[in-house]
């Protein structure tokens, strides 16, 4: 293992020290738990608090999107490990501004259990809490069992839209409706050409030969669903887009947001080549692109790979996507 680290067991704490110092304008630790990271001005009165969290190692997610118009608090776990109950509970307490709390999470066994236990405890304290679980990954199939799908880059879009909705002063039920609407209209699929190494494990999560790629990967360095021969990126984009488009399905005349997300070690140069082909492919299908994101939003340490997300957008979602945000890694005016 070759990494710029000190103690593999302390990477998250040391990262947080640096991050919080640089971004003190946006975020701070809540008093009650060192892994409960909240908006600098939390609790913000008169709005629903949008709270998420999960394992670390996904920079800029999750804490990079704490701020006005997106997230109110993030429970930060160990690398790729769900945060424990007290961290989530403290996020809820510290972010709660009197209008309830929406817990957003990816569909991972640990997150589901820890967030559920924290939600129960918060409700016992009299805080209104609702949960919404992202399931946008089509990589592993489960078309008929969406409750088994992972939440991947679509989570970023859910935070953006729910954050904007909450900022307008909408009630908890409405903010939750938007989480479910975004999730229902978003689909993602990923591919990787190199794994990542969890620092404390010290070994790569899988091994690929020079000419191989792993199809259907998530963002924890876990293996995907199939190992295939590496091909020119146009063919890879076509294959991913085909699976994503057919899953919802997205149809001619639809307007979509596209998100090409680098998984940590894929240069923007390659991501824009992928974007070029995605544009061509969607145009050929009569699908219009209303907004496009290209970059790193939800990474898996130094995994080399990318994912394609489509979100079908209507007027309501377009406005929420375009709404202002002021966070360390997404600024829109």
């Amino acid at each position, binding site marked *: 293992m070759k990494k710029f680290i000190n103690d593999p067991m302390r990477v998250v704490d040391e990262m947080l020290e640096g991050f919080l110092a640089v971004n003190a304008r946006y975020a701070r630790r809540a008093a009650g738990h060192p892994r409960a990271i909240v908006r600098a001005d939390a609790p913000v009165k008169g709005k629903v608090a949008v709270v998420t969290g999960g394992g670390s190692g996904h920079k800029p997610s999750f804490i990079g999107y704490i701020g006005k118009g997106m997230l109110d608090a993030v429970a930060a776990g160990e690398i790729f490990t769900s945060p424990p109950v007290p961290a989530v509970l403290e996020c809820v307490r510290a972010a709660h501004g009197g209008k309830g709390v929406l817990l957003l999470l990816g569909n991972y066994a*640990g997150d589901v*259990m820890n967030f559920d236990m924290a939600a129960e405890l918060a409700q016992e304290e009299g805080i209104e809490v609702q949960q919404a679980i992202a399931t946008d990954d089509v990589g592993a199939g489960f078309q008929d069992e969406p409750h088994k799908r992972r939440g991947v880059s679509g989570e970023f879009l859910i935070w953006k839209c729910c954050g904007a909705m909450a900022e307008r002063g909408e009630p908890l039920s409405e903010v939750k409706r938007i989480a479910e609407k975004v999730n229902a209209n978003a689909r993602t699929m990923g591919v990787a050409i190199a794994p990542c190494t969890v620092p404390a494990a010290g070994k790569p999560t899988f091994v690929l030969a020079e000419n191989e790629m792993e199809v259907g990967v998530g963002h924890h360095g876990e293996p995907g669903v199939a190992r295939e021969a590496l091909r020119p990126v146009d063919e890879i984009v076509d294959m991913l887009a085909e699976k994503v488009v057919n899953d919802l399905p997205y149809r001619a005349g639809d307007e979509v947001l596209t998100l090409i997300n680098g998984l940590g070690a894929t240069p923007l140069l390659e991501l824009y080549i992928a974007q070029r082909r995605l544009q061509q492919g969607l145009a050929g299908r009569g699908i219009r692109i209303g907004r496009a994101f290209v970059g790193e939003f939800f990474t898996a340490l130094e995994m080399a790979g990318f994912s394609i997300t489509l979100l079908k957008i209507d007027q309501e979602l377009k406005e929420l996507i375009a709404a202002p945000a002021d966070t360390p890694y997404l600024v829109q005016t």
Partner: protein
Amino acid sequence: MTDHVTGKALRVLRAICEEVERNKDYLCELDAALGDGDHGISMAKSFHAVALRLDGLGNAPLSEVLQAVGMTLISEVGGAMGPLFGTAFLRAGKVAAGKESLTSSDLAQMLRAAEEGIVQRGKAQPGDKTMLDALHPAVEAAQRAATEGATIRDVLRAAAAASAQGAAATKEMVAKMGRASRLGERTLGHQDAGATSVSIILRVAAETVSAQQT
């Protein structure tokens, strides 16, 4: 008598903490084939926290010891294993409440309660290639042994043997829960890490109690 049963339990728990640490790399290797390869790290961190917590519990009743272990597992590390093993210890602790000594039947009931807690929390069933595939046969074996009048030592031995078989049998299963479920048929031939952890814990419990009684 309180000191007696607590003292025994603390020796068992300390032995478990040490054995989990010794198996850290092995558990990570098993997990790497099916997940993100950190199961051993999570387990070692969790039980390291448990070991530290045990120091202040020498005079506590058994139920309090088990509840403290459960809360530590839930609170300290997170992940999926924290809530699952934590709930198991909390439930076993509830059964032990008010008991100054344990019978074979109490122990079988504690294991049963632990299993029920894990099912409730994790929503898995036997056959899904999870920790339950090591725990469920162990609970059944413990119940049978207790009903037949076996000693605590033999109840634990029966449970340990059944859980070792159960863990090995997960190689033949296709994962239906958790991250591994996304790999489908690719999970065949690999032993589940969570099930292996359960079998390690029960083996150490059986060995420690056997050693204490000889």
